[in-house]
């Protein structure tokens, strides 16, 4: 699973080259700017999102709206935190999640 983006990236880099710009010139600039590896991961994320139940999808879309309203500094801080999270082991990530749930329960007590 971990190696898939790498394999796609290698193959894509070998044979994509200049053809991607010529193939779909009318697509949004943003998609065109991504590397083949990034596109692969973006598509995977899209498929994951599509598989979610409607309420879960809505929740994530609301988070995205909040993300869009954040300042560049705030986004940068969150990106750094994401990098920190990525470097943790699965057990440590699980602990962070449990800590978050405990903290949230204290911050927003259930009715």
């Amino acid at each position, binding site marked *: 699973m971990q190696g898939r983006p790498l394999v796609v990236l290698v193959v894509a880099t070998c044979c994509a080259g200049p053809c991607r710009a010529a193939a779909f010139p009318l697509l*949004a600039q943003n*998609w065109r700017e991504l590397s083949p590896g990034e596109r692969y991961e973006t598509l995977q994320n899209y498929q994951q999102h599509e598989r979610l139940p409607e309420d879960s999808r809505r929740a994530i879309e609301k988070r995205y709206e909040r993300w869009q309203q954040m300042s560049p500094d705030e986004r940068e801080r969150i990106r750094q935190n994401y990098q920190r999270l990525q470097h943790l082991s699965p057990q440590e990530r699980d602990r962070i999640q449990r800590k978050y749930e405990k903290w*949230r329960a204290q911050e927003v007590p259930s009715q």
Partner: protein
Amino acid sequence: MSACQDFSEDLTAWVEEQLPAQRWEQLSEHVTHCPRCAAEAHSLRAAIVWQQRALQAVAALDGVDPLALKARLRRELRAAADDKAPAWDLRTVWATTFGRFALAGAAVSVAATVLLLGVGPEMVLMPLGLEAPPPAVVQQTDFFKDYPLIERLDVLEHFDTVESVPLDDDGSASQHG
């Protein structure tokens, strides 16, 4: 062959006698000895004569300055040709031996990737730009690109605070290692 390529860009200007003297003489020398370029020059000359007659006819009808119209047409056609000229043309690549090997290699790579990863071909073709992605992905590329981060936005926003929250099993977790 390379000489022809070198001269072909200026052939129209040569026919219209719009080149600097030295360059014009170089082309004249080449066209004298190259039947292929001579034939192309002949064809260009015929086209230019036809173009001038057409422009004169239009100018006579509308009172338009034929030289200005000709210059404008040339500009427009050149701009259109530049816009439409593909940065990459499959036929051009296929025309060379290396190109054929490269295309065959690319096709085998795509097929092998599809087989090895067990994903649909669209998961290879879309990243390569050979198939259009779903419209939602194009419209919200940022969203799907940063999806893993946005999924965990709540935790990440309060990461430092959350990290310092003690868990009930902290002591036992460290004892059990």
